[in-house]
């Protein structure tokens, strides 16, 4: 009798496990379906209030080849705008920009480091310019790299300064392969954008760009060069 009831209960347990497995599978399927459509099977609009460059693939607002980064800087928007608007000073905080020549009020020539010691030039035109708020630019049609981007100066909470958001579209020099190489050499636009903004913040808040340049026992390094 006792052994019989054990068998019964173990059989019940097996059924319960199978049942739970089926329920889990059904739940997963329902979840995946619900992700794509509303509960009534009608497609729903995505709702997040996040900037465009963080949207997942497959959502309404996803865009390929867009990179972006936002950094909080404890300075007024106008001051940050003015520093950024002085394009010729890009090389002080942009690691991959060798030189910027301002051609006229709207156009400038950027010389940019590319993988394997090469460099590329492009001419950009300002497409939007609102002091203290936004600067947007676009490469001219015959440039080696096609890019457009904007930097926005968004007021943070009172007393906290400004959120500076850099967003760029880019067309990597040699397609997907070039993107991979760039990533390996840490010139991948996303990493580059994050580091450039970090240097910009450092320069604006402290008056200098932080560097770990200091002595080491490694013969290949000098005490005045930053080390990675």
């Amino acid at each position, binding site marked *: 009798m006792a052994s019989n009831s054990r068998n019964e209960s173990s059989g019940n347990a097996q059924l319960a496990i199978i049942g739970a497995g089926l329920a889990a599978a059904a739940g997963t399927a329902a979840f995946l379906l619900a992700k794509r459509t509303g509960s009534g099977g009608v497609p729903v609009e995505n709702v997040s209030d996040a900037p465009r460059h963080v949207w997942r693939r497959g959502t309404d607002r996803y865009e390929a080849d867009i990179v972006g980064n936002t950094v909080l800087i404890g300075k007024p928007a106008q001051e940050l705008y003015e520093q950024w608007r002085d394009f010729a000073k890009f090389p002080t905080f942009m690691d991959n920009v060798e030189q910027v020549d301002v051609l006229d009020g709207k156009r400038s020539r950027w010389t940019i480091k590319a993988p394997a010691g090469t460099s590329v030039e492009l001419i950009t035109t300002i497409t939007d310019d609102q002091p203290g708020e936004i600067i947007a630019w676009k490469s001219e049609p015959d440039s080696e790299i096609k890019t457009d981007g904007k930097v926005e100066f968004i007021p943070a909470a009172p007393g*906290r300064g400004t959120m500076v958001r850099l967003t760029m579209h880019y067309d990597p020099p040699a397609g997907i392969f070039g993107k991979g190489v760039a990533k390996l050499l840490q010139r991948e636009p996303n990493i580059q954008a994050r580091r450039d903004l970090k240097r910009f913040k450092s320069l604006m808040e402290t008056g200098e760009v*932080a*560097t*770990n*340049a200091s002595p080491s*026992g490694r013969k290949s390094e000098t*005490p005045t060069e930053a080390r990675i």
Partner: protein
Amino acid sequence: MRALTWHGRHDVRVETVPDPEIVNPRDAILRVTSTAICGSDLHLYDGYIPTLRVGDVLGHEFMGEVVETGPKSSLHKGQRVVVPFTISCGDCFFCKKQQFSACDNSNPAETFDASRLLMGHPMGAAFGYAHLTGGYAGGQAEYVRVPYSDVGPIVVPDHLEDDQVLFLSDILPTGWMGAENAEIEEGDTIAVWGCGPVGLFAIQSALIMGAHRVIAIDHYPHRLELAKRLGAEILDYREVDVREALDEMTGGIGPDACIDCVGMESHGLTIDNIADTLKAHTFLGTERPHALRQMILACRKGGRLSIPGVYGGFADKFPLGQLMEKGLSVKSGQTHVQKYTKPLLDLIEQGKIDTTFLISHHAPLEQAAEMYAHWHDDQDEYTKIVLKTDMATPKQDQKEQQHELA
């Protein structure tokens, strides 16, 4: 210059490296006079901290004389200064909130991604402590470059000896902040795990802040004796069950606050710690939080945990439910050194804090490698080692003597 460099697990060497130079306007160069070996240097020595590179100059507790200044430094040549181990800009959101160790500018663009990935946000920088925290050369050297020299270093008066003020760089403020984070109230019993330098300063600080009793836990007799001399009651965990003892000493409720001055390399032959040690040695994990686990169970309901002890990553078998059900609050973090240097210097000058009692050995910088081995292997006898750059090296003297004799 001569400097102590890291070459691998249990392999540090004093070698000749280039002198530092002024790189940024706010920099200063110091000629180091005294530099100490810290308990957290042992985590580097034991190879538990990732992103350390062969050739890195170690050392984050140091002081010395200003020999060169950048155009925007507020220091002057010849001034004697103690330098906080945390490198902080003084201008960012965090520095303005006096959360100096969270500085958002000091960890450079070249290195900040690593800790950003590991911690969720980039860590502030520190001297001589791996590339996660910026990769700046440390002060176990004859000279050191000090960034943001207008906000970090504190000028010390000439009548105070190096030994009296050196620990303003790290362990004194760290012990002090450890006690402050315990939010001590009148009548409180504070339990301190670990009687190393930070633990000893936490004990001293807790008593200054008005703790009714301090109970100190360790297993090195000499370190426990130092704790007792400060006024703590002591527990050797090899002699007693710590939790049972703490309960019995507090009428069953447990200590009001517990301070973890042990960190990631807990000692003790318990099942959890043996498992953690095995994993740490096979690179399956970094933490050996035995002391912290014990603290959570020992602390009274609604009590406070303060964690100045260093941890580096993920911990297993963490009693999270116990933390929640007991309603404990936790305060932790690398020390906001710049916040504490001035008030603590005042207490030293007034004779209210003794900073020299724990120093067991002085040695020349040239013998630093040997001293690391002692610091690692002879922890009962070596309670704090201070390296001096102007001290004669006995070995060399002997060699010279032999030479003369020959």
